[in-house]
């Protein structure tokens, strides 16, 4: 397996929206990362919908309507290229034929609009249902084969394949609530990374077989969860910021297995992947406020190649149904980004996007170009999964401490004590990897080492 030892983008100045060193043609004529930023639209059934044998016809119909509404808006506004992401819900993966029906109906809608000048690409994101078994049997459960079957069945209709895999979550969840930094590093660096290596080798080969693109795998259940908890003031934002950096070390594994991007939007570790591997990335921020509140709404836009709304339930608004509305908003954001590039002002705009958030948020600070390069450098300084996750954590804490010292990012008083706690918490992973397993197996008994090849 390929490991990265140098950065594709080594200067902060070169980390900008719309361009990545290794652009990807997601469908003929639609290239991501080659100079333009495009919307990525994600929508989901209305609140309270049921997905079952009894309702599948209706569910399929609604998915068709959602796609067509968005495509019609695109035709009206003159949006030539965008990505539709269908993020499967649980049942669609558990019954792979249901997931296939949704993929098909979406593809059909897309095809109807090709000759109206709208060329949309479809990202199918399979749900990781392996976590349904507790403790999860990530390699040996029926769920594992259902996940892989879902990839197989959806591939023919999709352009991009993706997942947000959950390996390591059984350790990460309690570690997060305890703000146990070592536990987080272990969960992401050791468990999640190993699990992704297992899974992504298979996903990439399915994608290859069907001539489709293996996109990526964001640490949503980890970094995004941390952000949600920090938003609700359940955990300190300094901790959530660190989790994001560590998540990057984990998510790189997909690329090492052959994923080419565009990376998934959901965990904001994309910028590190772009810096390390040069792949184009999807990001979400202010225009994903429909899906969650954040402190990184602008900075998240600063180096995206696809700009996403994460997820909106299908509801009627005055301006149309929610997917159309979200698409229009994303498109305006992209128009501004693209226009700045046309005028050679992209760096000015990028810097404004960055600085408008960084001053008041260390979570935003993690995504500032300089931080991204530093964390990326820390990650590639080791080939060992656990070690590189650890180095990402250490670097993140260092960046935060410097910013606090310089006053460049504000941190609430109540959080300052946590920086020391976080450093203390890393001790158990600072020893060798083998010992770490024993240590955490004692602490978080709810994981099965053999399911991680340990």
């Amino acid at each position, binding site marked *: 397996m390929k490991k990265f030892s140098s950065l594709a983008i080594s200067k902060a100045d070169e980390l900008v929206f719309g361009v990545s060193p290794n652009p990807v043609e997601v469908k003929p004529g639609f290239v991501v990362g080659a100079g333009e930023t495009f919307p990525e639209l994600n929508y989901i059934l209305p*609140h*309270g*919908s049921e997905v079952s044998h009894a309702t599948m016809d209706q569910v399929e119909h609604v998915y068709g309507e959602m796609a067509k509404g968005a495509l019609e808006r695109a035709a009206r506004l003159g949006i030539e290229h965008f990505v539709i992401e269908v993020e499967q*819900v*649980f049942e669609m993966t558990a019954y792979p034929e249901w997931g296939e029906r949704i993929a098909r109906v979406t593809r059909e809608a897309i095809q109807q609009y090709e000759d109206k000048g709208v060329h949309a690409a479809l990202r199918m994101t399979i749900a990781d249902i392996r976590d349904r078994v507790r403790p999860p049997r990530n390699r040996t459960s029926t769920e594992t084969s259902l996940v892989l079957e879902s990839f197989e069945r959806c591939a023919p209709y999709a352009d991009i394949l993706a997942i947000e895999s959950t390996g390591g979550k059984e350790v990460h969840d309690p570690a997060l609530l*305890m703000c146990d930094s070592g536990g987080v590093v272990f969960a992401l660096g050791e468990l999640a990374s190993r699990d992704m290596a297992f899974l992504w080798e298979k996903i990439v080969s399915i994608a290859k077989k069907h001539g489709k693109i293996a996109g990526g795998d964001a640490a949503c259940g980890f970094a995004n969860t941390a952000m949600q908890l920090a938003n609700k*003031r359940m*955990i300190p934002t300094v901790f959530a910021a660190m989790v994001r950096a560590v998540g990057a070390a984990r998510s790189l594994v997909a690329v090492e297995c052959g994923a080419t991007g565009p990376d998934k939007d959901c965990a904001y570790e994309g910028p590190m992947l772009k810096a390390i591997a040069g792949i184009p990335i999807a990001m979400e921020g202010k225009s994903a406020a429909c899906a969650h509140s954040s402190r990184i709404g602008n900075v998240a836009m600063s180096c995206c190649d696809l700009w996403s709304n994460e997820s909106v*339930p299908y509801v009627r608004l005055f301006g149309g149904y929610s997917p159309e509305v979200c698409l229009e908003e994303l498109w305006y954001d992209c128009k501004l980004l693209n226009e700045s590039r046309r005028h050679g002002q992209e760096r000015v705009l990028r810097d404004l996007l960055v600085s408008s958030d960084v001053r008041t948020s260390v979570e935003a600070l993690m995504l500032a170009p300089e931080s991204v390069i530093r964390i990326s450098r820390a990650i590639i300084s080791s080939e060992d999964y656990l070690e590189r996750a650890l180095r990402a954590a250490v670097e993140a804490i260092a960046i935060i401490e410097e910013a606090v010292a310089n006053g460049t990012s504000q941190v609430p008083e109540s959080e300052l004590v946590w920086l020391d706690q976080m450093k203390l918490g890393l001790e158990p992973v600072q020893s060798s990897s083998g010992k770490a397993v024993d240590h955490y197996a004692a602490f978080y008994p709810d994981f099965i080492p053999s399911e991680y090849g340990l």
Partner: protein
Amino acid sequence: MSTELLKEIATCIERGKVNAASPYPPDMKGKEGADELVKKALDQGIPASEILEKALIVGMSAIGQKFSRNEVFVPDVLMAAKAMQAAMKHLRPFFDSGEAKHRGTFIIGTVQGDLHDIGKNLVAMVIEGGGYKVVDLGVDVSPEKFVDAVKQNPGASVGLSALLTTTMINMEKTVKLVKEAMPGTKVIVGGAPLTQEFADKIGADAYSPDPQGALEFLNRTN
């Protein structure tokens, strides 16, 4: 002085100082924790009930209030809970039953098809901290499992969590079956996609966007 000692214990609970060996919190490193001090208090002849009321509950509610005011974080509360457990280990033999002090029983779980449990776990923690016995059924819990649990815990209230718009719907069936099996059972629902209207629609007794609301509801109805 016994008041001094009780104050110290309360501080250990509030700060999450489990025992002398524990490195948390760093500024109390090396000092004795809840474990040692409660033992000492019992040795000094302070009645278990007094230790519970004047130290443990005092410490827990201090941290609980700070948490409500956003002055501390979940890990602080979890550490306090650990210190509390260490303390209770010594006190439990003095009470007729470990449950004697419970204000009631709360059965909680994430509904069928749904694996999100962080929110549910937080609710469980706060309710436990509020003095209730919590029966946590985990995730992906079928309506039938909820019914079994209700039958095994007569008088218990039930909390349902759902994070997916596609699993919310499973709440309706659960509420119905639970109320059929054990009429009068109070059911509270929660989770990001839920609303008061939805709760009303499916016949739940209450909805709350946060654990505090669930605790208040239980306090009102128990």
